[in-house]
C-alpha cells in the first residue's frame, strides 16, 4: 500500500518537479513559440516567452524552401525500417544469447557488447569507404543497415537478452512438452511475452534513427534524399546565416511525431525498461 504524502510534502515535491522540468520544458516552449515569431522578435530583449506578434508564414516557408514533405517521408520510412529491422534482429539475437547454449556464447556476447564502446565517429570513415565501394553512398541504405547491425542494435539486443533471461524456463519447457520446436517457442511464447521490452526497443530505436545526424551528412548529398535533422540545417539566408524562425518551425514539425509517439507509448516504454532491469 502506498503511504499518503502530507500536503506540505506534496507541495514541496511538486515544486521540486516544476524546477526540474525547466531544463526539459523551456527549450521546447522556446522552439514552439519562436517558430511563430518574426525573426526580429526572437532575439528581442527582454525575451518574449509569449509571442507579441505572430507570423504563421514560417510554416508555409518550411515547405517552400526545401522538399520538406519528401524529407519527412525519408525520415519516416527509414526510421520505420530501422525500427522493424532492429526489433527482428535484436529479439532473435537476444533470445539466442539468453536461451541457446552454443560454444563461446558468453564470449561472443561480450565481443558484441564491446561494439557499444566504440563511438560512431571512429567507424564512420571505414563505413563510408565500405558503402562507397558497394555503390551505396547517397542512398538510404547506410542509414538503414548501419543501425540495424550496429551499436543501436547491440543495445537493443542487450535489452532483449536481459528480458528473455528473466522469462521462466518452465514456460519454454511446457511449450516443448506441448509440441513446439525452438523457433515456434520463440514466436508463440517468448516473443508475445516480450512485448514491453520490444516496445521500449521500438521507441528508442525509432528516436535514434529519427534524430540521426552524423550519418546522413556523411552519406547523403542531394536535398531530396536528406532526412529531417540534416534538412533543418539547410534553412539559411543568402549569406549562410540561419533563418531562425523557419528553422524552428521545421524543428517543431520534426519533433511532433516523436512527442506524440512518446506520449502514447510512455507507459510501455517505462514498463519495458523496468522488465529489463534497466533504469530510464
Amino acid at each position, binding site marked *: 500500500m502506498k503511504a499518503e504524502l502530507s500536503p506540505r510534502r506534496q507541495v514541496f515535491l511538486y515544486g521540486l518537479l516544476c524546477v526540474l522540468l525547466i531544463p526539459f520544458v523551456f527549450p521546447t516552449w522556446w522552439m514552439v513559440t519562436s517558430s511563430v515569431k518574426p525573426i526580429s522578435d526572437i532575439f528581442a530583449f527582454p525575451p518574449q516567452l509569449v509571442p507579441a506578434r505572430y507570423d504563421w508564414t514560417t510554416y508555409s516557408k518550411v515547405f517552400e524552401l526545401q522538399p520538406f514533405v519528401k524529407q519527412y517521408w525519408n525520415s519516416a520510412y527509414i526510421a520505420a525500417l530501422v525500427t522493424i529491422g532492429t526489433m527482428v534482429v535484436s529479439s532473435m539475437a537476444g533470445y539466442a544469447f539468453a536461451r541457446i547454449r552454443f560454444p563461446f556464447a558468453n564470449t561472443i556476447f561480450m565481443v558484441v557488447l564491446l561494439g557499444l564502446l566504440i563511438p560512431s565517429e571512429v567507424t564512420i570513415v571505414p563505413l563510408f569507404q565500405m558503402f562507397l565501394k558497394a555503390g551505396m553512398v547517397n542512398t538510404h541504405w547506410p542509414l538503414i543497415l548501419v543501425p540495424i547491425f550496429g551499436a543501436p542494435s547491440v543495445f537493443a539486443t542487450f535489452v532483449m537478452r536481459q528480458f528473455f533471461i528473466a522469462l*521462466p524456463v*518452465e*514456460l519454454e*519447457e*511446457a*511449450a*516443448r*512438452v*506441448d*509440441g*513446439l520446436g525452438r523457433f*515456434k517457442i520463440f514466436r508463440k*511464447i517468448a516473443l*508475445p*511475452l516480450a512485448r514491453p521490452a520490444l516496445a521500449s526497443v521500438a521507441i528508442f530505436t525509432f528516436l535514434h534513427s529519427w534524430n540521426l545526424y552524423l550519418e546522413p551528412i556523411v552519406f547523403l548529398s542531394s536535398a531530396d534524399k536528406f532526412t529531417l535533422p540534416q534538412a533543418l540545417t539547410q534553412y539559411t539566408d543568402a549569406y549562410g546565416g540561419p533563418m531562425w524562425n523557419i528553422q524552428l518551425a521545421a524543428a517543431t514539425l520534426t519533433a511532433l511525431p516523436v512527442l506524440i509517439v512518446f506520449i502514447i507509448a510512455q507507459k510501455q516504454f517505462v514498463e519495458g525498461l523496468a522488465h529489463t532491469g534497466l533504469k530510464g
Partner: protein
Amino acid sequence: MAEVTLSNVRKSYGAVDIIHGIDLGITDGEFVVLVGPSGCGKSTLLRMVAGLETITGGDVKIGGRVVNDLDPKDRDIAMVFQNYALYPHMTVATNMGFSLEHRGGSKAEIAERVKWAADILGLAPLLDRYPRQLSGGQRQRVAMGRAIVRDPKVFLFDEPLSNLDAKLRVVMRGEIKSLHQRLKTTTIYVTHDQVEAMTMADKIVVLNGGRVEQIGAPLDLYDRPANQFVAGFIGSPSMNFLNGTITPEGFSAPGILLPLPEAEHGHKDRKAVYGIRPEHFFLDENGVPAEIILVEPMGSETQVTMKLGETLATGVFRERVSLSPGATIRVRPDLGNIHLFAADGGQRLN
C-alpha cells in the same frame, strides 16, 4: 496409457554423477511417487523421462519404445510443473487447447476436449480468464487440465503442490488422486513431502543421493523400511533411532535397556540401531522409564518428547498426557514393531 521402464538410467554433469544407474518398472495405470530430500535427483529423473534432460546412460522406455533420443513432444507425455508454467498471454481455454492446436487438432475437436477437461476440473466458468486472474488452486487445476486434455500415455508431476498453502494442498492432493482413479493414466509424481507420497502413491520410490533406497507400496515402506534412511524419511513424526548393542537381555542403549523380541537375540553383541516409530510406544507401568522434555497436546493425540536413557525420542499417545516436563513416565515399545538396522550402513537386520 503405457508402462514406463527405466533401465540403468544414469545422469552426469561433467565428472559429477547425479543419477547412479536407476532401474524402475512402472506398470500401466500405476501412480508412482518419487520421493526424497532436496538434491536427491528426483526432479532430474522425472525430467529425463520427460525428455527435458538428456540421458547419460541406460534406457528410458515408454510403452515399450526406447525414447532416449526423442523430443518431449514425441514421447506422448504431459507434465505439470511446480510453478504451473501457464502461458500468461493466453486464456485458460487457449492454454488448455494449445498442445492440441499444435498437433493439428480441428477447432471443434479442441473445443470439445477443452470442455471435457474443464468440466472434470470445474474450470468451465474460468475458460476466458487469464492466468493472472486466477487463484493458486485454480492455476493448479488449469495446469492439470492442460495435461489431461491431450490424453497422453503418461502424466508427469513435478512437485505440483509445493506452491500452495497447507489446506489447499490437502484438497488438491485429493483431486489429483481422484483424477487418476478416473483416468487411470500412468503417473509419475515427484515430491519431497512424504505425506503426499504416502497418501497418493500406488508405489513409492525413495531416492537419496541419486540412488534408489527402496521401492514399494506406501505401507510396506512404512512397516518394513529397507534401511535407516527410508525408516527416517517415511513417517511423521519420524522414527526414533537409538544407537547401542544387541545383548541377550535386550537392546543396550546409553543409559537404558530396551526390550527386544526373542527372535532378535541371535544378533547378540552386535552394534546396531534400534528404530521405533512414535506411535509404537505405549504408556505402561511395567515399561522403561522416560523423562518428559516437552508435551504437545494435538487434540486427538499427544506428542511427547522424552529422554530414553541419554537419547531424545518422540512418543505419540492416544491418551492425554497431563504431566509436566521433568516428570518421568514409563513407556513400553511394541515388540512387533521394532526395527533393527546395522550400525554400519544402516541396512535392516530383522
